[in-house]
């Protein structure tokens, strides 16, 4: 246990996820590996369909029966992929909990918010319903829901989107998880509410020393909350590094494309350049680099085999064959745009 405590909180090695059914066999996550320290915030960045949600759900094996998961996942010393169902349920919602994208649909419409929070507490801890409700109230106050007491007895449809997402966060924090998984927690909200929720999450994450994995396709969100960023493309990590490194010197042509195609603080007033081409078809990936069909730097070598990770600098990795040349000769264009 002490050994586990010294190691990283989360260790993911060679994670692979396939969905197999009678009329489909598709690999959506390919050989993803990463570590996450206690209290650290990692952001998974990428276009929709790149496998962010699936990677996140792997950590609590929240999949339909068609999913086949390979590789190794350890969280706080627990081997998640080989855990029996009953033990897995003890991990879910307690050691690891999850926030979903749509606060509109992620809460059960026919139970009150308080009942739903208390339910989690009662299931994981040996407490009475009354005590659980008291804890639920404290949690609603923790996530800064105004008139928390009244909102506790409200049904989800009686709350605004922002309040609902706060309730969802309260639910996720109910059993003081060490790892919080947040799948695009602000995408469905209005811009002003998004910022409030992000600030709240960042504050709670630091206050509670909770490791967090954020999924987003929004660079602004990533900058705001992440210690580290991992960029995903077609089920692979193509670039990982500290948030500062990835944002200031993006080294994969796809990351560079992402930075140029979205609005964010660093590029105010500049032109937006969408990444050419269309997102990859996971059932028909090229033999080489999955990004090669859309890459402006593509060469023959890119088409031969999927590139391995190369070190850009310490703790900054890139899956791009041309990385050393690009980093040296074309660094200004990569870092600052054409």
């Amino acid at each position, binding site marked *: 246990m002490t050994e586990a405590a010294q190691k990283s909180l989360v260790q993911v090695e060679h994670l692979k996820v396939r969905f197999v059914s009678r009329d489909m066999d598709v690999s959506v996550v390919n050989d993803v590996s990463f570590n996450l320290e206690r209290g650290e915030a990692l952001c998974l960045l990428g276009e929709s369909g790149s496998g962010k949600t699936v990677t996140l759900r792997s950590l*609590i094996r*929240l999949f339909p029966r068609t999913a086949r998961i390979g590789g190794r996942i350890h969280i706080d010393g627990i081997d998640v992929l080989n855990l029996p169902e009953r033990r897995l*349920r*003890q*991990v*879910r*919602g*307690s050691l690891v*909990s*999850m926030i*979903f994208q*749509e606060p509109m*649909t*992620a*809460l*059960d*419409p*026919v*139970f009150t918010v308080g009942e739903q929070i208390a*339910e*989690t507490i009662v*299931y*994981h801890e040996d407490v009475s319903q009354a005590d659980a409700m008291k804890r639920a109230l404290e949690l609603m106050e923790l996530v800064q829901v105004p008139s928390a007491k009244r909102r506790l007895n409200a*049904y989800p*449809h009686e709350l605004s989107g922002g309040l609902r997402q706060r309730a*969802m966060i309260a*639910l996720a924090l109910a059993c003081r998880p060490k790892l919080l998984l947040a799948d695009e927690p602000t995408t469905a909200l209005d811009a002003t509410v998004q910022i409030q929720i992000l600030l709240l999450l960042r504050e709670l994450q630091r206050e509670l020393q909770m490791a967090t994995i954020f999924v987003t396709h929004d660079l602004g969100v990533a900058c705001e909350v992440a210690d580290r960023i991992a960029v995903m493309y077609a089920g692979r990590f193509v670039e990982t590094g500290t948030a500062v490194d990835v944002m200031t010197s993006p080294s994969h042509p796809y990351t560079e494309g992402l930075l140029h195609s979205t609005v964010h603080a660093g590029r105010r007033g500049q032109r937006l350049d969408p990444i050419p081409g269309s997102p990859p078809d996971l059932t028909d990936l090229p033999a080489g680099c999955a990004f090669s069909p859309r890459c402006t730097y593509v060469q023959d070598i890119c088409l031969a085999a999927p590139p391995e990770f190369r070190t850009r600098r310490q703790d900054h990795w890139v899956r791009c064959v041309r990385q050393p040349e690009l980093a040296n000769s074309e660094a200004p264009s990569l870092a600052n745009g054409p």
Partner: protein
Amino acid sequence: MAVYILRRVIYTIPIAIGVSIVCFLLIHIAPGDPLSAVMPEGASAAIIAQIREAYGFDRPLPVQYLKWLGHVVTGDFGMSITTRRPVLGEVLPAVANTMILASTAVLFGFVTGCVLGIIAGYTAGSLTDRAVTAVAVTGVSIPHYWLGMVLVVIFAVNLGVLPATGMGSGGSGNFALDWASLRSLILPAITLSVIPAGIIARSVRATIAEVRKHEFVQTLYAKGLPGSRVFVHVVKNAMPTVLAIMGLQLAQLLGGSILVETVFAWPGTGFLMNSAIFNRDLPILQGTILTLAMFFIVINLLVDIAQTAFDPRIKRS
């Protein structure tokens, strides 16, 4: 909540009045002269006019309706033309008999329907699901009087284990809570339960499968809840839809089935209406239809109220 219920109750009043008008007009829109059954053969025009006056048929329709309504609310539904006894005295026992049959059929049908529907809903898309759906579709499509006759042939004629027709011990028409009476109930109840079972199986399956696709189910699993607890959430979400369907089926069964009650000689409302139609006994027909229509209205009201107990969103709209 109390306000909502009160409002719902008030809404039913115009519906009830509308239904009573239709029932009243039934006598007048039915083909033939409603008085032909009581007219003496070869009556002169003067006598006909006299009888029409005696029955109040010479007054304007609205006046006739109000007079009739005044009688009805005091329980006076008129006299049966065939038996010359008060209509209410004929209708009430028939309603009671149909209720015995219907509630048993409801029990069979709803339990089978729910069990099948839940299994199929939880295995949506699988072979089990398709098998259950096939059974349900068959159940809905089989003509139930035909099924009734087949069951009679098998269990009464060939095996001789159950009585073929009649209610109560030896078809006496007196129902008691004894084995002989219960035996007479089995075949008609099963026959009647097949269609509701099929309909409920299909709607439960569709609703459960639909609810299980909602994202909140993922949240429940992500909270670490066991499948049994998630099931409670799924059922509570499915309840309003399923209740509405059950209410319709219940109302339909309580209405009695002319065909099934006739096949099994079960002295319920269906049986009563069948003979009333043959004897052109319009007062009986009118009284039965009015009573059943009121049942429909009350059951609909109860279903509406029960739905709000499960879904907090309904109260608002």
